């Protein structure tokens, strides 16, 4: 399994689409690592500067309908190329969410009030998340403040993450 802990990037907006995560003009790359410099290049979010704000970030926290739009798996690949293996949001677009788990990455849904509470408590501060896979818990920490939240995963999603993705799982089973 991949590492699911690290510093948090706060993207305080709903409906962030996959064109914003990785613009189509970069889909001519067939090597995933080459997507790294272009992550979130076209994100429409006041004050956001990908070059500055992506430094050392490992976990994204966002709002509703994250990853809507195109089916491009280049969106999870571009996140992974930057060391981001977890996106936590109120909700996800179907294809993006499936793509994350198919790659062995986490797309975790939390209730809107909990996401809101996390933004209120931590946004704008250097914040770290530690993920306890067995206990299904995320612990957000900044300075002396700490908040632990529980997440749910289906057995199927959990199997995909533990198997490292869908290809080996499906080829052995079907």
């Amino acid at each position, binding site marked *: 399994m991949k590492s699911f802990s690290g510093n948090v990037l706060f993207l305080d907006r709903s409906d962030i689409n996959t064109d914003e995560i990785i613009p189509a*003009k970069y889909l001519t790359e067939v090597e995933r690592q080459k997507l790294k410099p272009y992550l979130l290049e076209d994100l429409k979010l006041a004050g956001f500067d990908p070059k500055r704000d992506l430094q050392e970030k490992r976990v994204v926290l966002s709002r509703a309908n994250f990853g809507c739009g195109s089916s491009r798996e280049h969106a999870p690949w571009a996140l992974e190329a930057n060391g981001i293996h977890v996106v936590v949001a109120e909700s996800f677009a179907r294809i993006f969410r499936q793509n994350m788990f198919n790659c062995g990455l986490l797309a975790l849904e939390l209730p809107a009030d909990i996401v809101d509470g996390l933004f209120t408590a931590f946004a704008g501060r250097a914040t770290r998340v530690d993920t306890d896979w067995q206990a299904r818990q995320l612990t957000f920490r900044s300075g002396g403040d700490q908040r632990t939240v529980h997440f749910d995963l289906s057995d199927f999603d959990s199997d995909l993450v533990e198997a490292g993705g869908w290809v080996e799982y499906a080829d052995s089973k079907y």
Partner: protein
Amino acid sequence: MGNTIAEKIFATHLVDTPASGVNVIRLDAVFCHEITTPGAILDLMARGKDRVFDPARIKAVIDHVTPAKDSKTATQGLILRQWARRHNIIDFFDIGRNGVCHALFPEKGFVRPGYTVIMGDSHTCTHGAFGAFAAGVGTTDLEVGILKGVCAFRSPETLKVEITGTMAPGVFAKDVILSLIGRIGVGGATNKVIEFGGPVVAAMDMEARMTLCNMAIEAGGTCGICAPDAVTVDYLWPFIAADYPNREAALAAYQRFNPDPDAHYVDTIVHDVSDLTPQVTFDYKPDQVKSVAEMAGAPVDQVYIGSCTNGRISDLRAAAKVLEGRRIADTVRAIVSPATPQVYQEALKEGLIEIFMDAGFCVTNPTCGACLGMSNGVLAEGEVCASTTNRNFYGRMGKGALVHLMSPATAAATAIEGVITNSPLFTDPQPA
């Protein structure tokens, strides 16, 4: 309790339920293009699994950037071309025979009622117009589809959309779907299949139904589905005539996928289009929709007519009807991209290409190109495009550019005036 169309299709294709609510289904068709498939091919090769489940059920096309614009896109085409040859994939459409996938594959008769289809392209939902379950997926799902002929989906919850009333002249399927997305929002159908029905859908031809289903994903929908009927059978008849004694028999066979009267829907929306006027998007999300009248006078730099949403022959006919005998404004450049070679040839025969060129349009070969800012009409920063495509996302057709989505008739009228305007085909049902 009865079943929806999607539930019936899932029941006939179920392979496994690896967890509660997760269905692994057998696929009737796996569609491929050169942007999302090479990653799957290379990964299969790296894993020592360079196999395909059934070459006859895999269809492939180079459509996003064609002809290739540089070495990278040429390589993507090469990977797909060599793979198709290696695995004897007969239905591979190379340059000259290629068109926008969601226009080309229906035209070839590759989609049938009751089919399950995936493609590494979010607008795969278009094919639901034929009463199929067709869903966009990522490269890994595509890869497993190619290898094993299966895909996993959550149990399909269905949102029923009954489209009622009578459309005014000059109002099109594009206006209907834009108004619906404006109503339910970009996440309004997430994780749901949209089942389109009602008298307006029944009266639509297949091309209009494809426009409708094409943008189901813009509301987050897994698939848009129209129940198969006589219109579906008539469209498919050249491809299925050998399989059925007559059209009635084909219809009877297909209608086993029709929803039961007591089917369960998560929600039912009645969308009355009697007062609907031509629609246009105004910002960067497809649910930010206004009437063309409200947006009238907004200047544009480029007009684009094409794509899997509105690049079919009926779309070109509607635009040409507006353009005939007229010239586009000096301040505007306009591009038309017939979605397939067949559309292009038919437009030539009907004199539509001449009308477009006389009006001052650039006519390109069939390609997705400009719709996603990859080629053939990319915008500069700060420019504005009136477009018949499906996404107005920030940066979609060019970094820092703005896209207004609209019907081909509205786009043609906008090209003539240089500013957003209603087409002369439109007669307001409730004039002010």
